[in-house]
């Protein structure tokens, strides 16, 4: 019993400073766009929480982030792997005040789409296809002040 208490104390000491620093939180949502008709009889696209989707469906993944701390966060980078069984939809990554780059090698390197090339077995190279992207990276171009929120998103299609 005494030993367990000691372990807990040790954790508390380590966690305390981290909590103070862990000021930026991120929340991921999966949404689908559904076309409905509003009160005026006009067609509108509404985003609903995606729970069950069928192959061929586009899912919009929205990552909302918030600085809950007292100090500005610098060099804010959000990285999202493309989920398994899904293909990134070309041109769908959005995010204000961010530079967006992509990886085709599991997140080891990121670059703009026009700089991503795939080398074929025969030695020739070609531009990478959107479905070959493995990760998306959003790099904020400015610090995130305390209390500030931001949102990035992308679409992926279920294979």
């Amino acid at each position: 019993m005494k030993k367990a208490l000691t372990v807990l104390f040790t954790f508390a000491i380590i966690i305390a400073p981290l909590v103070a620093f862990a000021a930026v939180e991120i929340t991921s949502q999966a949404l689908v766009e559904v076309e409905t008709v509003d009160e005026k009889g006009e067609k509108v696209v509404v985003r609903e929480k995606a729970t069950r989707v069928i192959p061929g469906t586009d899912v919009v993944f929205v990552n909302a982030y918030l600085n809950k701390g007292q100090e500005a966060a610098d060099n804010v980078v959000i990285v999202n792997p493309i989920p398994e069984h899904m293909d990134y939809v070309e041109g769908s990554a959005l995010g204000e005040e961010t530079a967006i780059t992509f990886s085709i090698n599991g997140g080891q390197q990121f670059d703009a789409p026009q700089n991503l090339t795939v080398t074929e077995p025969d030695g020739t190279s070609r531009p990478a296809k959107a479905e070959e992207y493995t990760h998306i990276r959003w790099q904020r171009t400015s610090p995130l002040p305390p209390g500030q929120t931001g949102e990035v998103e992308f679409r992926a299609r279920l294979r």
Partner: protein
Amino acid sequence: MKRSLILLAALALLLPAQSALARGTPAGTTITNQAKVVYTIEATEIELDSNSVAIVVGELIDVELAWQDATNILVKPGETDRILTFLLTNTGNGTERFLLSVDSEIGGDQFDPVNPRIYLDVDGDGEFDPAVDLPYNPADPPTLAAGAALIVFVLNDIPSGVDDGDRGISALAAESATGTGAPGTAFPGQGDGGVNAVVGASGGASAAQGIYQVSRVELTAIKSATVADPFGGSEPLPGATITYTIVVEVTGTAPANDVRVSDDIPEHTTYQGGTLRLDGAPLTDAADGDAGEVLGSVVTVRLGDLQDVTRTVTFQVVID
């Protein structure tokens, strides 16, 4: 019940080999997304994961039925149990049962095949075997995993009184037991493992037509003889030469296979060596690989497969 269990077991064996056709992520698969944020505060880099958000893949109901025979099935009037071969493929992403139906009384043809029946190729060999392959049972329709395929046979009888070249169509239809409808029609909770099932581009149904074509092959063989006596006349005297001519004529829309002419040398005559001809071209008398020979008192000429053609065999004998 025992019978249906055997059927299911056989199907299960059949399915993995053909599952390469699977389309779409399997129904019931859970897909998760998790992002991370990395940032710096006072020169300390901090990394934090987002929550993990999960989506379950729903079932897409799709089916494809295709007639497999390369050409029209050639039939003769009054034949029974003539086979058309179809391939039923589950092109959805979940396990589905498929209801089958056959209709031989449709338009666009010259006759209606009769007594249509559906059989399942239980052993998966692509050949109809009445001892093994079971008749389709509407109470126990075939179950196919995503991407799996099953060969289905349709048997019909051919009515008598049909003419050469007449075509008869038999249509096989398949529909998902879960349901059919316009693409997008949903069946909540009715997919694999209780996920939603949604009708795909096929509408959850598919149909294909197979064609029978009547082929009345007519084969006639007419034998004639001309006599040349030693005196320049045509009297059948001893020493006179008889030239026999056998004209074989085949008509119809299909070949007569392995046609063979066989004729006995008449008594009191002697075959004249080296006089056997096929369409005027000499054949040796020996059995040596060419199309004909004379062995003992029998003349034989093999004409092979003949379609819409006339062949002429001649040989000569001398009256003893």
